[in-house]
């Protein structure tokens, strides 16, 4: 990679580089046992080699069942988890060997909104302090600047600037999620990681928040990494979608293409298990046997083979390659 430029932004790399590129990312957690010489007895392979790119102004969604590693991948991008192997490139620059200055600017550019607006907020902090906290990183901002930014952000998410002195308990779940979004907005980010941002909200509030997220994106032009398990939400929000199973991406494509032509048996099973939008819709059942294997004992070959209805003998031995089946539509399956 090229050398970092003199300004604090991680703006190295060629202009054709995607904004964020994840290459062969692994995040493993050792499980240790024993009183003194803590031996590693197993390794939880939460993320086990995934690669994807997020372009400016786009929404990339990750779907998968619980335990597939989608949140861990997001945490690695947020630099909360340290990758065991592989790297995350921001504008062509590897974030793991960035300088302190660069990391600081990276952390301003990449923000996060989490699932539960009740546990993501400190009940003793006023909205003002909650929103301006990430702005403390930018030493050039005065206290008044920070407050002005916070008020502006509150207005952008549809709350009143006066709400700035209130405490979290004075707001409903939907409003709290708006405040969490305002906090992310305040530092003018380029990428926001949304980890199940609407799952804990009521149906009527979900639509409000999703529409708000879309409006903000079209006005301010940032990118989203959107993590969700509800497929309708994913179809509504995304440009591109990646499907994860047991720490690996099994399929990646442009959103509509994926919903119209799912290739991987796991994606097909996930779609067929989705609840119908109308009682007359009867989905073709692609049933997987049993439960997801433990991330400590990942099956050999293709990870899905013990459950896959289309499994062939060599699925158990050879790990399928990640290949482009039709332009822009990638999958890892021996069927293709």
């Amino acid at each position, binding site marked *: 990679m090229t050398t970092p430029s003199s300004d604090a932004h991680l703006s190295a790399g060629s202009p054709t580089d995607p904004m964020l590129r994840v290459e062969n990312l692994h995040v493993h957690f050792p499980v240790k046992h024993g009183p003194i010489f803590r031996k590693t007895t197993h390794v939880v392979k939460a993320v086990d080699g995934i690669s994807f790119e997020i372009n400016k102004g786009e929404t990339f969604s990750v779907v998968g069942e619980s335990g597939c590693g989608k949140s861990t991948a997001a945490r690695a991008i947020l630099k909360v988890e340290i990758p065991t192997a592989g790297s995350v490139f921001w504008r062509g620059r590897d974030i793991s060997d960035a300088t302190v200055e660069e990391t600081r600017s990276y952390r301003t550019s990449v923000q996060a909104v989490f699932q539960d607006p009740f546990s993501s907020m400190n009940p003793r902090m006023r909205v003002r302090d909650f929103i301006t906290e990430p702005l403390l990183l930018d030493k050039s901002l005065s206290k008044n600047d920070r407050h002005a930014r916070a008020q502006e952000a509150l207005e952008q998410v549809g709350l009143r600037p006066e709400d700035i002195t209130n405490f979290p308990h004075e707001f409903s779940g939907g409003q709290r999620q708006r405040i969490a979004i305002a906090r992310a907005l305040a530092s003018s980010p380029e990428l926001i990681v949304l980890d199940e941002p609407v799952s804990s909200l*009521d149906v009527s509030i979900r639509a409000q928040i999703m529409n708000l997220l879309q409006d903000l994106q079209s006005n301010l032009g940032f990118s989203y990494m959107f993590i969700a398990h509800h497929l309708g939400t994913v179809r509504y929000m995304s440009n591109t979608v990646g499907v994860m199973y047991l720490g690996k991406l099994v399929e990646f494509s442009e959103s509509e293409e994926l919903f119209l032509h799912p290739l991987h048996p796991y994606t097909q099973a996930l779609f067929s298990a989705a609840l119908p939008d109308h009682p007359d819709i009867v989905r073709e059942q692609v049933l997987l046997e049993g439960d997801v294997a433990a991330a400590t004992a990942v099956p050999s070959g293709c990870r899905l083979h013990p459950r896959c209805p289309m499994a062939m003998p060599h699925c158990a031995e050879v790990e399928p390659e990640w290949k482009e089946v039709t332009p822009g539509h990638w999958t890892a399956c021996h069927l293709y």
Partner: protein
Amino acid sequence: MFGLGVAGERYIVWRWDLALLEVEDLQTHIHSRRSTNRAVDGVSFKLDAGKSLGLVGESGSGKSMTVLSLLRLVPEPAAKIVGGHVRFDGEDLLAKSEKEMQAIRGGGIAIILQDPLTSLNPVFNVQYQVGESVHLHQLLSGQAQADKVIESLQKVRVPAPEIRMKDYPHQFSGGMRQRVVGATAIACQPKLLIADEATTALDATIQAQYLTLLRDLQKELNLALLFITHDFGIVARMCDDVAVMYAGRIVEFTDVREIFNHPAHPYSLALLEAVPKIDARVDRLYAIPGVPATGFVQVPGCSFAPRCAFALEKCHNEKPPLVTVRDNHTAECWRAEEVYEQGSALLRNAPADGEPAQSDSANRGAD
């Protein structure tokens, strides 16, 4: 379908065409120091044996309180059932003594709750927990009790039940745990099974398996199923009839195809339009402005009126009538007929002053 005759205050019921569960004008209030929450504010519905009904609503709509009321499990003394009738299998549940109710809970009516980890006790094995209800309701013990446990675990398709029943809840996966809860529920041959958000905590593929299982059990055991859910997808997949609840009242009641094809209440219509579709691309969701109303605030008119795209002057001032738009299809709305006829087209052409589509910022005051 059913026959009811009223003689004074008493109902004369013809058993051969009796609905299994009849709830009439049920009212449960929750009192706090400052105010009273009319959590359940006049709920009426019927459920026939072997049928399934979905009770749909957002949080605070009173759907869970309704269920607790019919089981007489409301958290007294703060909450009180203040009126109405609940008739189950020809008997008035609200007139029963606590002891008689204990025989009905888990006996005639069983319930599956959302989180299997909290409904199971971590320090007892599965045999004990499933066996407990068998012991209490059927007075079985020893080998007969164990056989019964194995039989119910088999019914919910837990593999190798003779071995697995010795295991503790933490040794089961999430889906299997919920099956164990299901085994406890069906162990005493209930006639009515209530599923209160029973699959919400499960992953999509596990949820699909569980719903298929419930369908099979319903057929095998001729169970009546009452689904409490916020998800219209569950209703579409599982239910014959659907009741939509808002602020403690059932605002619409009809069969499942009707609600999807011709919703007659603006709330049901808006709720259906607010859910992103899996089978079609939606460009813009309809977002209902404001937040769900609860029973705390009493309004003179319709409680949905402040959020409604079609609200008229009188909607704010007068209680809406119960309109029967078709056989077995009722909605509590002044404009039910119009909504029924025109559906989402009406929503698209809703008056501009409400600006429901861009309501995110416009209506933030209500949120």
